[in-house]
Every structure is written in structure tokens, then in C-alpha cells.
């Protein structure tokens, strides 16, 4: 059986640490065998995933156990990689950035501690998944709605902390958190916002508390382990209306982005709008071989066949409206007025009224349907996402997308893109699908990602979220004043976590050149 040691540890020291962890949280919840470790390998790893293998897994069941683990980790200098549920698919899943870390799996801490119907908020633990919270709300018939990400298998807190998004008015997930409970790298416990007050009544009511607000410090970072979080939920509206706008030409992205961004800035459309190319839709319902078996990138003529057969446009934007009947119908009329002359036909919205079956509504219903896309090339599939932030300028976004499409074609990768329209930005997401067991595909994907990162940075566009294999590279593109942000991050990290025991290298903070040793 192969054993992997954390960076800088010998076998005897690692055994002593594991012994202490076992005494603290119980033998069954310290997993160090190879069979258990392989269940934590990223299912979308590029290749076998062993370059991000862990040395063991610790699965605490309570806040006190998390604190005990962190204190022991400081004594033994064992690096921990905390995950809420470990389903960050496309970004490394549960795997640590640095080979040999121990995964701190918080899945067992999965209680929904409180749901406040009147104030539309809840308090949950990191092991609570989207399906769990959705079931909880539906079983109790509570008139509270959630936002869900494309892959809803993961943790509500985990997704929000990595700044994941959904497609309802509560879709900026990090913005819906209100009040965190955090175990700091020295094992002490902190509550942010109003929770900093003993016996506070408004922990889930006001985010900022008094003085500096530290909540953002625990997002996309390694400065604490979030063990509870408040979350705002959407009061069920009276009516929703939804439609998918199919824009027939690639170049339509320019004008359509400008209109949709304007509607988003004015809060007429209150959610993150997604705007996808044909492969995005086709990959959730078919495989590449159903359309094309030739080499290189999928030709445009095939994309056009997909569009014709599946009733798609080049870009397909799903739009939903939420509110009382009067405002929803007024917004429907406005969108029809803006788009019908350009698209040359009437737009049919699907309207839901309170009391009708929820499927008809625009609420977030958790799903793993989007994961089907990794089956595109066949074999064991995976996907990687590159999603730089652009300002809301249709011409600029279209010019950028054209450049990226040409590069996909040059390297022979099927073009799969989407635009996500946020409150003031556009993410031009490049999704990169691959068969992880095909070495030439893995090489192509790596080359493509590195090129996209370089190209975007040169244009002034930075990536919003990082895969474990590229965290240092993305961090390096944030280079104002010779990397002032990275220096600040390092100083904070060194002050709070002098032993660098929490997720060394996450988002490029506290990276070390040396991974684990295999014996």
C-alpha cells in the first residue's frame, strides 16, 4: 500500500499526528488507507489525479472537533485542506492544491440549525448540500426559495465561499451569506457580523456588525474554517415568467449583451443571466460523436446543425422575472418590446402563479443535469473553466469571444462558451471539456488554459475563481504594484497561520514549492 506523507514530515512523525487525530475525533473518522484516499481523488482530474493526492482524511462531527484538529495540526505542523462537501467539480473537487495535505472533510456537519420563515433566512453547517436544504424547505412547505448552482451536488456554504453563482435574484451566493462562525488557524472561534455580540438577536439580519467586516477574508482563502453560516432565502414571489432567448448569429452577442446588461444594472432583470453557445446545450443531452467524429475543433457547420435540430440559437439566454403580477407582466412587455423587433417574432414567456407546480416557476431547483456535459468526448470526462471578468461592454465582450473562439479552433478544441451577466460585470466563461485518460487531450487543455489566462490578463481581464492546478498562476496575474495584493495576503496569512497549516497555496496564498513525499 502506498503511503503519502505531508510536506516535510517523516513516517514516524505522521503516525504520531494520526494517533492524536484518532484520539480527538475517533478512529472511524480518520481515514488514511489507499482505498479511502482514492475516493477523494478529483473525478475530473487531468490524468490520474495523483499529483493532488491527499495523505489522509479527517471527518469531524462538531465545531469542538474541528478546533481540536486544528490545535493538533499546529503541534505536528500537518497541513489541512478543508472542504465543505468536496464537490467543487471543475476546480479540483476535494483534492488539495498541495499534494500530501490531509483533507478536512466537513460533510458530517450537516445540520440545518434554524430556518426563520418570517425573516427569510436560515443558519446552516457546511455539510448541508443544496438538495438537503431544498428538501427541508419543501417538506415543510415553507414559502422560501433558494438559488442553486449548475451542479447542485455540493455544499451551500462551500459554493458561496468559493463565490459560486446561481440564476435567481439570490444567485450571487457569497452576497447571500449573513454571519459566519469560523475556527481560526489557532483553533479559536470567531463569529462575524452581529454574531460577534454575545446573545445577539440579529446575526442573520445584518451582515456588517461594528467596525471592519471580515467575512470576505474567509472567501477563496485559507485563513479560517467556516463551521456555520447564515444564509438569506428568497420569499416566494407571487408570479414568475421565464423564457430562453435564442439569438441566431454569433455576432448577436454584442447588441444583446448591451441590452441585457442594461436591464441587469437597472434590476429589471434581477438575476445572473447566462448566455451559452450550442455545445453548452448539446453536451447536456448528447455526445460529440452523435454530431461529429472528425478531428480538430467542431466546425461551425456542425454547430449550425445542432442549432437547427435542437431549436437553439448561437447564443441562448435564459431570462426569468420575479415579483407581483403587475410588475412581472410589465417587465414581460418591456422585454418583448426590446427583443421582438430584433428577433423577428413573438416571445412566449412561461408564466407561473403562486400555487401552481413549482417546476413551472423560475425558482432554483437543485440538479446535477449539467454534469452530463463531461460525457461529451466519451471516456472518463472532466471539465475546466476559465472565466475572466469583463466590464459590461457588448463590443468588447464580442471581440474577446471571437479571439478565444479562434484559439480553440487553432488548438483543436470544441468551442464551448457562455457569458454570465452579473450586476456590473460579464464573465466570459470558456468551458473546456476533455477525456481525462487521453494524454493528448490533457496536454491540449493545459496549453489552452495557460494561453487563455495569459491572453485575458494582457487584455486586462482577471479570472474570478481558480482550479487547484492553476492557483499560483492566476494569483500572479493580479500584479498591480508588483503584486501588492499577494504581499498583503502573505502578511495576513503569516500573522494568523504562522505554521501554514490551513490549505497552503489556496488561491496562491502560502504556496510552497514542495509537495508530499510518497513512500
Amino acid at each position: 500500500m502506498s503511503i503519502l506523507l505531508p510536506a516535510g514530515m517523516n513516517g514516524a512523525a505522521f503516525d504520531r499526528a494520526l494517533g492524536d487525530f484518532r484520539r480527538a475525533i475517533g478512529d472511524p473518522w480518520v481515514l488514511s488507507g489507499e482505498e479511502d484516499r482514492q475516493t477523494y481523488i478529483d473525478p475530473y482530474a487531468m490524468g490520474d489525479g495523483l499529483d493532488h493526492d491527499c495523505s489522509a482524511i479527517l471527518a469531524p462531527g462538531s465545531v469542538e472537533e474541528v478546533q481540536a484538529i486544528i490545535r493538533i495540526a499546529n503541534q505536528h505542523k500537518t497541513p489541512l485542506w478543508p472542504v465543505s462537501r468536496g464537490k467543487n467539480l471543475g476546480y479540483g473537487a476535494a483534492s488539495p492544491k498541495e499534494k500530501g495535505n490531509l483533507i478536512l472533510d466537513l460533510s458530517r456537519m450537516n445540520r440545518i440549525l434554524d430556518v426563520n420563515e418570517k425573516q427569510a433566512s436560515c443558519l446552516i453547517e457546511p455539510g448541508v448540500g443544496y438538495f438537503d436544504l431544498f428538501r427541508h424547505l419543501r417538506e415543510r412547505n415553507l414559502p422560501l426559495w433558494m438559488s442553486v448552482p449548475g451542479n447542485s451536488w455540493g455544499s451551500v456554504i462551500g459554493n458561496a465561499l468559493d463565490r459560486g453563482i446561481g440564476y435567481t435574484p439570490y444567485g450571487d451566493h457569497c452576497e447571500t451569506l449573513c454571519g459566519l462562525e469560523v475556527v481560526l488557524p489557532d483553533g479559536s472561534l470567531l463569529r462575524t457580523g452581529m454574531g460577534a455580540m454575545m446573545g445577539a438577536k440579529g446575526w442573520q439580519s445584518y451582515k456588517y456588525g461594528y467596525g471592519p467586516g471580515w467575512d470576505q477574508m474567509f472567501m477563496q482563502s485559507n485563513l479560517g474554517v467556516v463551521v456555520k453560516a447564515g444564509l438569506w432565502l428568497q420569499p416566494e414571489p407571487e408570479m414568475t415568467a421565464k423564457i430562453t432567448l435564442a439569438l441566431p448569429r454569433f455576432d448577436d452577442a454584442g447588441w444583446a449583451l448591451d441590452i441585457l446588461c442594461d436591464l441587469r444594472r437597472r434590476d429589471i432583470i434581477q438575476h445572473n443571466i447566462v448566455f451559452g453557445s450550442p455545445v453548452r446545450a448539446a453536451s447536456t443531452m448528447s455526445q460529440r460523436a452523435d454530431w461529429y467524429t472528425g478531428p480538430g475543433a467542431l466546425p461551425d457547420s456542425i454547430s449550425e446543425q445542432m442549432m437547427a435540430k435542437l431549436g437553439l440559437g448561437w447564443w441562448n439566454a435564459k431570462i426569468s422575472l420575479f415579483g407581483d403580477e403587475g410588475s412581472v407582466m410589465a417587465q414581460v412587455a418591456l422585454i418583448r418590446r426590446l427583443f421582438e423587433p430584433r428577433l423577428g417574432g413573438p416571445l412566449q414567456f412561461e408564466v407561473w402563479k403562486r400555487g401552481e407546480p413549482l417546476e413551472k416557476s423560475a425558482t432554483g431547483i437543485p440538479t446535477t443535469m449539467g454534469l452530463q456535459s463531461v460525457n461529451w468526448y466519451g471516456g472518463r470526462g472532466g471539465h475546466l473553466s476559465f472565466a475572466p471578468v469583463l466590464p459590461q461592454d457588448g463590443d468588447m465582450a464580442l471581440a474577446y469571444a471571437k479571439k478565444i473562439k479562434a484559439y480553440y479552433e487553432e488548438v483543436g478544441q470544441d468551442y464551448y462558451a457562455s457569458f454570465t451577466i452579473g450586476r456590473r460585470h460579464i464573465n466570459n466563461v470558456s468551458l473546456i471539456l476533455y477525456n481525462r485518460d487521453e494524454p493528448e487531450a490533457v496536454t491540449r487543455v493545459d496549453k489552452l488554459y495557460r494561453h487563455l489566462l495569459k491572453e485575458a490578463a494582457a487584455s486586462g481581464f482577471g479570472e474570478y475563481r481558480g482550479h487547484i492546478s492553476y492557483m499560483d498562476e492566476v494569483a500572479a496575474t493580479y500584479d498591480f504594484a508588483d503584486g501588492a495584493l499577494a504581499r498583503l495576503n502573505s502578511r495576513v496569512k503569516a500573522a494568523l497561520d504562522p505554521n501554514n497549516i490551513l490549505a497552503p497555496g489556496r488561491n496562491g496564498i502560502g504556496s510552497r514549492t514542495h509537495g508530499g513525499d510518497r513512500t
Partner: protein
Amino acid sequence: MIRILAFVLGLILALALIAMPADAQGPAAPKSVNATPIATTALGAISYGAQSANPGEKLFGRKCAFCHIGPSTGKFMLARRVPKGQAELPDRRDLTADYVKAVVRNGLVNMPTFTRVELTDRELAQVADWLARKGRK
């Protein structure tokens, strides 16, 4: 009358799902030639087994159904390679408990592994036994 209405409503819903463009942001149904008819909605899949007295079925509902029941990934992928009408795991005739355990712990093609933290050995045995017995009925 009510039954007829419910049937018509169900049919409309099923058609609405089929007509909805598939998108990673929401549940949708396939239009590919390999698609099997949809018996369960996305909501039905999420509440699958909730009322069951069988702990294996209940666990299957919580841990597996969101991919393997109704309009979702596991079902669509399996529809490409198992006999017609068996794309949802409870309809499979060929599952043994040991096979289910091996796939859950090792993964299979695009099915990810389940850890012993997410699904303990005891829980996995309950799911696997239920699936194997169900297939023999």
C-alpha cells in the same frame, strides 16, 4: 375527473420539460434519440423514497436519486448502454449488491466515487441490498 385532470397536467408538465432547452442551470430533458421517456420530474427525483419504510430505499432517495431518477445525468448516461426501461437503477435487473458497492467506491466512467464519510459502509450495504432485491422482484 380529478384523475384525468391530474394526468393531463402531468402530461403538460412532461411536455414542458421536454420542450425546455437543456441548460446547465436547470433541469431539462434530452431530445437525443437515446432518451428514455421521463416518468419522474426533477422534483419527484429529489423527494424519491422520502416516505419509504425501507432504509435502503430512503438512502437511495437522498444520496443517489438526484442523478439516477428522472431527468438527470446518471439516467441519461445509462440509457445509452443498458436495456430499454432500465436506465433508472431501481429498474435494473442485473445489479448485485457487490457490484453496486464496487461502483460506488471505485466510480465507473463518469460516475464519481462516494467516500465512506458521505456514505458509510453500513449505509452502502443497505442501498446495495435494496437495489439488488428490487431488481429480482
